[in-house]
């Protein structure tokens, strides 16, 4: 039922010697990662009732996570299940493919959305052409293949994603209480959430591009369903937008499949990468499908000009946003781009991808500056970071790929954390607006501090994100092509990110009298646990970043370039271009931070004073303000600058989209 | 950029600071500084009290007292102009700041007394910090 083929990679070759039981183990683990979530999803869907769900979800995410850890501990492998219950998997997936496309077509038909219908039809046609005319069904294509990159992805998907699902339990309960639903729609919700995890795992493990395509479309469907979950008009429109944009990506994917099949004769990722390594292979025939794949990746990763679907996805309940942003969906996009990176390494396409990613980085960062909606800030920041990842993929050196993978890991954790925080905040204060979070510390001290921790891990050293950003910038500086514009975009973009993060962190900590602590807050366990775990993870994993690097990231980059990106000695990253001393920094900053906290604690209430108000400060009903005209009390207010005239969505989006389209056109055109 | 020549000229030349109180510039002749009363010549006619816009002089002809609150005085010299005997005058130095307030209270010889120049020759001084 399974075979282990050792013809692809020496790593994998080693695996052919493994014992039979290990193979079975592998079998179980892949099953646990990919198919089990689907079964669990079916279980939650059919076994209704809160109690059952409260058991099924934690248990199944725990199993999935365990499977992921198991897979990761096994190391790279390649693996081809041939058939399930006697049905050939290839055939099964082909059938499912058409079924899925048909289902989407039906949805489009119901909404009488011509665009989606058209896009779906195109894909169907393409698949028909591919499956029945192009494909040589005799060739064996390894179904699954895993290296450090995919295993890292699996870990993120299963663990972070699992935590989000768990958080969803508490969250959705309250969410539905808010909505006063007659009948709980949670079974449907968790069905898609769990399905999503499985599909993502399948996607990142797939070696056969046509399998990957299948999983790809499953995530599209899941996201559509989840975005539209609340069923409001806005939810529906936004879900539809997400659908058509992703379907457009799907068309590109199908196109890439056709071209690849035609030019290389295989859809095996490993084969294609191996072939491309040969000199003289990086011709238009190979690069065109690569460009299409990148395009597909861009749509999924919500790169400009497709950013709007991801922002629109904000209407969905928070766990969905968290899932889409941190561990699934968008990460699929960048995964694909990185996965294929060796195939276009050193070409103009690579430079174009880098520029495009950098542009997304700066554009999305600028858009984030103009937002006061916390979730939107998070959304744009996600897009920006994905842009950065893509830029790294485009830079395409081992250091850059290392940066990209590090970004994927740390972004997933911090971003999931931030989304969950915003969700928790929103349920408490009824708003996701940053302005409404002013002085949140007084209301939700723990969540506020955790959110600030999340933000700080996003933007400051010595945390993983910054380590990754450092890698990115240094590799950009050594990039061979298009360096000056690339660097300037990255520099501007990172300054913009500091801007919007710092002000958010600042407003949360609002005033309390020194030495006085606000009352402790209460929170459901299923909300608090993921928050604590993720916050701990964001900090702890940063502390472990040298290990993360050498265990997960370095092997992943080894596939891309011979040279190792960084040597790590005693927690100090170093290569020719620079040094980043993680441990010393952690040590000094940590000690300093503790000292600063103690100093802050020491200042007691006797040192308290009101803010300076030109001498007319006044307190009324616990509100701080000043004595204004007519001796009236005026409460002071302060607002961040969102500079709508500069950074407003409506102002910027248009020009950003135009530039992005031009860049895309150049990218596609440049290949030919 | 036009300022450049100005600041450069400043730094080349000497600073224009008067190093008060280390160096003092000779006072201008007519400066209206500290108000002094040569109490010998005072006839307690009350002209100063009546004309003073700040109403800070109190003259008590019976007791022969002339009081002035130097912290309410606005140094306008109206009293000086009004004084028939020219016993009031102003120094050309400002009155020095003090850590507490007081009233300058001068004891002269009441007008009606014939032995005017005998008893109170020297001005009595009394520091009466205000309540």
């Amino acid at each position, binding site marked *: 039922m399974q075979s282990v083929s050792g013809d692809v990679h020496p790593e994998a070759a080693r695996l052919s010697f493994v014992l039979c039981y290990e193979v079975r183990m592998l079998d179980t683990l892949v099953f646990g990662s990919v198919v089990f979530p689907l079964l669990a999803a079916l279980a939650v869907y059919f076994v209704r009732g809160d109690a059952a769900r409260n058991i099924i979800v934690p248990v199944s995410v725990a199993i999935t996570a365990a499977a992921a850890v198991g897979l990761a501990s096994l190391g790279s492998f390649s693996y081809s299940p041939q058939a399930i219950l006697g049905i050939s998997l290839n055939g099964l997936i082909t059938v499912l493919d058409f079924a899925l496309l048909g289902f989407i077509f039906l949805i489009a038909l119901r909404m009488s959305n011509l665009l989606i219908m058209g896009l779906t039809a195109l894909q169907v046609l393409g698949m028909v052409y591919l499956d029945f005319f192009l494909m040589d069904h005799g060739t064996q294509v390894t179904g699954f293949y895993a290296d450090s990159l995919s295993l890292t992805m699996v870990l993120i998907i299963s663990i972070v994603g699992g935590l989000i699902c768990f958080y969803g339990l508490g969250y959705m309960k309250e969410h539905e209480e808010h909505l006063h639903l007659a009948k709980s729609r949670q079974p449907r919700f968790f069905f898609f959430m769990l399905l999503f995890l499985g599909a993502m795992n399948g996607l990142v493990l797939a070696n056969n591009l046509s399998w990957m395509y299948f999983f790809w479309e499953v995530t599209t469907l899941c996201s559509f369903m989840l975005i539209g979950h609340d069923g409001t008009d806005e939810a529906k429109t936004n879900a539809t937008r997400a659908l058509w944009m992703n379907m457009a990506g799907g068309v590109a994917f199908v196109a890439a499949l056709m071209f690849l099949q035609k030019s290389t004769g295989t859809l095996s990722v490993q084969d294609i990468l191996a072939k491309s390594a040969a000199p003289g292979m990086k011709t238009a025939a190979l690069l065109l499908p690569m460009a299409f794949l990148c395009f597909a990746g861009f749509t999924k990763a919500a790169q400009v000009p497709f950013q709007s679907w991801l922002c629109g996805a904000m209407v969905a309940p928070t766990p969905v946003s968290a899932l889409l942003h941190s561990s699934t969906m968008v990460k699929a996009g960048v995964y694909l781009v990185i996965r294929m990176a060796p195939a276009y390494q050193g070409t103009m396409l690579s430079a174009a991808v880098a520029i495009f990613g950098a542009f997304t980085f700066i554009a999305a960062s600028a858009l984030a500056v103009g937002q006061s909606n916390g979730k939107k800030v998070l959304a744009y920041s996600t897009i920006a970071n994905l842009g950065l990842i893509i830029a790294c993929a485009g830079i395409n050196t081992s250091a850059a790929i290392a940066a990209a993978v590090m970004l994927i890991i740390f972004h997933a954790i911090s971003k999931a954390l931030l989304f969950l925080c915003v969700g928790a905040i929103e349920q408490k204060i009824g708003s996701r607006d940053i302005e409404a979070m002013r*002085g949140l510390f007084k209301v939700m001290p723990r969540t506020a501090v955790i959110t600030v921790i999340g933000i700080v891990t996003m933007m*400051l*050293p010595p945390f993983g994100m*910054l380590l990754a*950003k*450092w890698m990115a*910038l240094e590799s950009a*500086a*050594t990039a061979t092509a298009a*360096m*000056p514009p690339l*660097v*300037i975009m990255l*520099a*501007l973009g990172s*300054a*913009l990110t*500091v*801007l919007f993060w*710092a*002000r958010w*962190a*600042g*407003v949360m*900590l609002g*005033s309390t009298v*020194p030495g006085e602590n606000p009352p402790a807050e209460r929170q459901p366990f299923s909300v608090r646990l993921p928050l604590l775990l993720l916050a701990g993870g964001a900090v702890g994993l940063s502390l472990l970043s040298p290990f993360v690097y050498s265990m997960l990231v370095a092997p992943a980059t080894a596939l891309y370039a011979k040279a190792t990106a960084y040597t790590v000695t005693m927690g100090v990253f170093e290569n*020719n*271009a*620079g*040094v*980043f*001393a993680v441990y010393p*920094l952690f040590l*000094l*900053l940590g000690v*300093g*931070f503790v*000292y*600063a906290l103690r100093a*802050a604690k020491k*200042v007691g209430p006797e*040192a*308290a004073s009101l*803010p*300076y*108000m030109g001498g007319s400060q006044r307190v009324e009903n616990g509100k701080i303000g000043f004595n204004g005209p007519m001796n009236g009390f005026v409460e*002071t*207010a*302060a607002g*961040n*600058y969102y500079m709508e005239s500069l950074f407003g969505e409506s102002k910027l989006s248009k020009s950003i989209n135009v530039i992005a389209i031009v860049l895309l056109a150049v990218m596609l055109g440049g290949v030919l | 950029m036009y300022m450049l020549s100005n*600041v*450069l000229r*400043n*730094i080349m*030349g000497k*600073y*224009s*600071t008067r190093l008060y109180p280390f160096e003092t510039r000779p006072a201008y002749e007519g400066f209206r500084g500290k108000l002094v009363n040569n109490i010998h010549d005072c006839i307690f006619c009350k002209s100063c009290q009546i004309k003073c816009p700040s109403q800070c002089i109190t003259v008590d002809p019976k007791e022969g007292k002339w009081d002035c609150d130097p912290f309410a005085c606005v140094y306008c010299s109206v009293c000086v102009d009004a004084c028939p005997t020219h016993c009031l005058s102003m120094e050309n130095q400002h009155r020095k700041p003090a850590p507490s307030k007081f009233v300058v209270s001068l004891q002269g010889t009441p007008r009606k007394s014939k032995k005017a120049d005998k008893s109170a020759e020297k001005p009595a001084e009394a520091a009466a910090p205000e309540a």
Partner: protein
Amino acid sequence: MLTFIAALIGLALTPVVGGLLAGVDRRVTARLQSRFGPPILQPFYDVLKLLGKAPMVVNSWQVMSAYIYVLSSALAVLLFFMQGDLLLLFFVMTIGAVFQVVGALSVPSPYAQVGAQRELLQMLAYEPLIIVVFVGISMATGSFKIADVYAMEKPLLLSMPFLFIALGYALTIKLRKSPFDISACHHAHQELVRGVLTEYSGPHLALLEIGHWFDVVLILGLCSLFWHTSIVGMVALLVVTYAAEILIDNICARMTWPWMLKNVLGVGLVLSVFNLLWLYVS
């Protein structure tokens, strides 16, 4: 180890140098304005006095932020003396800048809040410039390590004069000098009182002041990299740079942040791109 000890000594000397620089700055500024000016040691008197004042704060976050600001500025200086990585140094410096903003934002004082917003915009203006300058250096030397700069034979200024000007912009902003004393300035004669510093007082203000000295020395240190080949040249470059800063401070009005963004990012980035292209081609 030796570098580490040397770096520690350097770190200890930095506030002394920073304070003296500030003192000289104030004296020279006074003379430029035809005033006698304060004693050269004045900044030390100020800081000592502030340290002796009773603490007065609006909330505890302020205090924490002040400490972190000083800490990270000092750390950045330490990294500089240890000839570490330029980008890393920059990121560490950012911690301080960010916490300055966080401290100001945590207070419900409109002046501090607006000051914080402006400080952020200033960061937006100078951060890209500094990064680009570092990239320029890395192009010239092949790495971001300061040690590699010292290994160069020719002074950097010769190959990156425009980037030096760009760094000059950043320096002016960091020094809070006209025309860029937008978020806070040395004397409170502006609409924001003292912007981000408004709500700090006593010892905590002293901390920020010391942190500022670290920042100034650090940026001047970065400038010094442009003429590393001889001590004389380095000193001359620094003197000229600092003198130019003081002069500019005295011959310009304070500008507004929209002007700053337009100008610093516009002119600065054009200069940098030009210089980068030049480096890139050669």
